[in-house]
């Protein structure tokens, strides 16, 4: 996979290269306006967005999560790490309604997600990507992203059948926004290609764009760097930071410590379904419990381990 340079976050629209600096700045502003409409990072930054409260999940006799409590704060990038089988993805699955908690609760801005229908959770503002990429293969990249925007659409069946004005307005806006998002993640030039025809790295970016299209308050990224080259990882880190800077809150499950330590504002560490640490990256990497969990080695050792 040598697509690292082509997928780096810099503007990739062919047409953009012919733009002057001023035009370009203006264009970028348009893009981010479309990508993150009406977000103000300053407002409410640092307050609790998602509260995970004494969460316990059991499958048969197996306890996947055991009384886990932590917060995700507005405007931060939270890393969720731990050895294999620690319960990270289970945690994501609870957040997005794939599994239901055995006990405990999970609240987004005070609203419990524990019994909410999955698509309602998305509409409430939690979006995610998948460890093993799962795109809609029969659709183009652009169409994939538009599906994400549909989470916010209200067009009724008769409206669509008869192409009523609201339908037309929503469609136009959806395409605009989806194009902007593709540009934001840096794959706008592949908009017309079938999703599965995209290179691996671009598929990951497409998943992120699709998730962003649902206008989430919280974006959950499940091992976004898996299978990436070093250059790609750097580009990805850059993208994640850019997402945060545009006003999103990000929860990140990732094995690659360089990425985690490079972008996260705060880290929660899980081991065998229990939370063993929660703090700033520097605190966490020195936490003896965390070090012990990672095979008795240091977190630096773990960094070198490819998952």
């Amino acid at each position, binding site marked *: 996979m040598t697509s690292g340079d082509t997928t780096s976050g810099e503007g990739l*629209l062919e047409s953009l290269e012919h733009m002057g600096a001023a035009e370009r700045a203006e264009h970028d502003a348009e893009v981010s306006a479309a990508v993150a409409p009406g977000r103000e990072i300053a407002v409410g930054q640092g307050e609790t967005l998602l509260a995970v409260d004494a969460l316990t999940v059991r499958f048969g006799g197996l306890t996947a999560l055991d009384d886990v409590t932590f917060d995700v704060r507005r405007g931060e990038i939270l890393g969720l790490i731990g050895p294999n089988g620690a319960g990270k*993805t*289970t945690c*994501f*699955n609870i957040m*997005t*309604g*794939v*599994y239901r908690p055995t006990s405990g609760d999970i609240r987004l801005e005070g609203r419990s997600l524990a019994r909410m*229908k*999955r*698509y309602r959770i*998305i*509409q409430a503002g939690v*979006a*995610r990507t*998948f*460890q*093993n990429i*799962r*795109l*809609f*293969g*029969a*659709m*183009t990249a*652009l*169409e994939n992203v*538009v*599906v*994400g925007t*549909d*989470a*916010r*659409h209200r*067009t009724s*069946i008769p409206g*669509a*059948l*008869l*192409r009523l004005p609201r*339908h*037309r307005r*929503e*469609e*136009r806006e*959806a*395409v605009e926004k989806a*194009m902007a998002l593709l540009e934001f993640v840096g794959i*706008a030039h592949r*908009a*017309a*290609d*079938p*999703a*599965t*025809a995209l290179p691996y790295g671009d598929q990951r970016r497409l998943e992120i764009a699709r*998730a962003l299209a*649902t206008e989430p308050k919280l974006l959950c990224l*499940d091992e976004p760097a898996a299978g990436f080259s070093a250059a790609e990882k750097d580009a990805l880190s850059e993208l994640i930071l850019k997402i945060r800077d545009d006003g999103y809150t990000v929860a990140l499950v990732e094995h690659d410590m360089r990425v985690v330590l490079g972008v996260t504002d705060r880290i929660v560490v899980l081991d065998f379904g229990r939370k063993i640490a929660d703090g700033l990256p520097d605190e966490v990497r020195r936490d003896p419990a965390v070090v012990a969990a990672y095979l008795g080695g240091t977190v630096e050792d773990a960094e070198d381990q490819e998952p």
Partner: protein
Amino acid sequence: MRHRMSQISAFWNARSRVQQWGLLVPVVVFLLWLPVLNPPLITTEPATDFPIALFNAAVLALIAIGLNVVIGQAGLLDLGYVGFFAIGAYTTALLSSPDSLLGVRYPWLVIVPIAMLVTMISGVILGTPTLRLRGDYLAIVTLGFGEIVRLLADNIDPLRGNRGFQNIARPEATYPDGSPVFSQTDVLGFYWLAVCLIVIVLMLMGNLERSRVGRAWIAVREDEDVAELTGVPTYRFKIWAFAIGAAVGGLSGALFAAQVGYVNNQRFDVATSILYLAAVVLGGSGNKVGVIVGAFLVSYIPDRFQFEPQYRFLVFGLALMVLMAFRPQGLLGMRQHLLTYGRQAYRRLFGAGAAVAPTGMTASTRAAGDLPEVKPDDHAGTSPRGGGE
């Protein structure tokens, strides 16, 4: 053939919508004129009346378009679609036949919306308990539903079983000379009506396809879990797919009942359902034009080549097997345009001059019909249950 198909498809995709319409109108006019021309090699006479053969093909095409919504778009394997066709036909019969206990005779045009509504409701009734089921369970349950509809027509006395309903209402109109436009044997009027209905339904379905509805269906078909985790209310849209597919089935049932003028419980069996399925799959599930072609072939070929009716179903079964072995996506591959303003968006992206390039490029991969790479777990058929684990 594959190459030729992809060329045609690429050519077509490269046209603007106006150009496409410009090409379509003469095609439709030709189709409307076809039974009048009755061209020597194409005609099914003397074995069977050519306009009737065409009308039957058109009804099957309408059915296939409706079934395509369910199977091709939403990916729900419905083996009991004939049940909806039957409900449409029976509703028409009950509301207009003198044999009906209801004792009313509504005009056909009044009945059609009622029939569509009734089938839509029955689609919802069938869908509500069953659409939470995974694919193969759904297949057997819908198959059971189709059988139940047939058996109810059989068992419930007021539905008259094998005795059937006579003198079902037809649309009322007369030619200047006073002869009826819509009759059982002179079906030119019915054929034209059917073609017009197909065009209208195609346009409406196209509108749906290029909206969040169509995208939701495709998303459900591609990966139901992910669709839901992307904010698609999958259950609701699956029920809509059933309801809309059912409504088209009801419409075709009403059309069929009107032309024959008689409905009984024959021909609503599983084998007929499977014939419908074959029409969809043969032409290319998910491709509206494809399913019309498929329906035409399934209906027309047995009428045209009556040389050995003995072997009809054998040939038919072999054709299905060979087709699946060499061209599983059907004669025309799957391709939906899912964005109302997609054309503009792509064109703007690549500049006006390059308009052909992206569509051409993608069309060649798609129009060749190559389905997206099949994921290994897809092949095994196990759709991953969970989100990401």
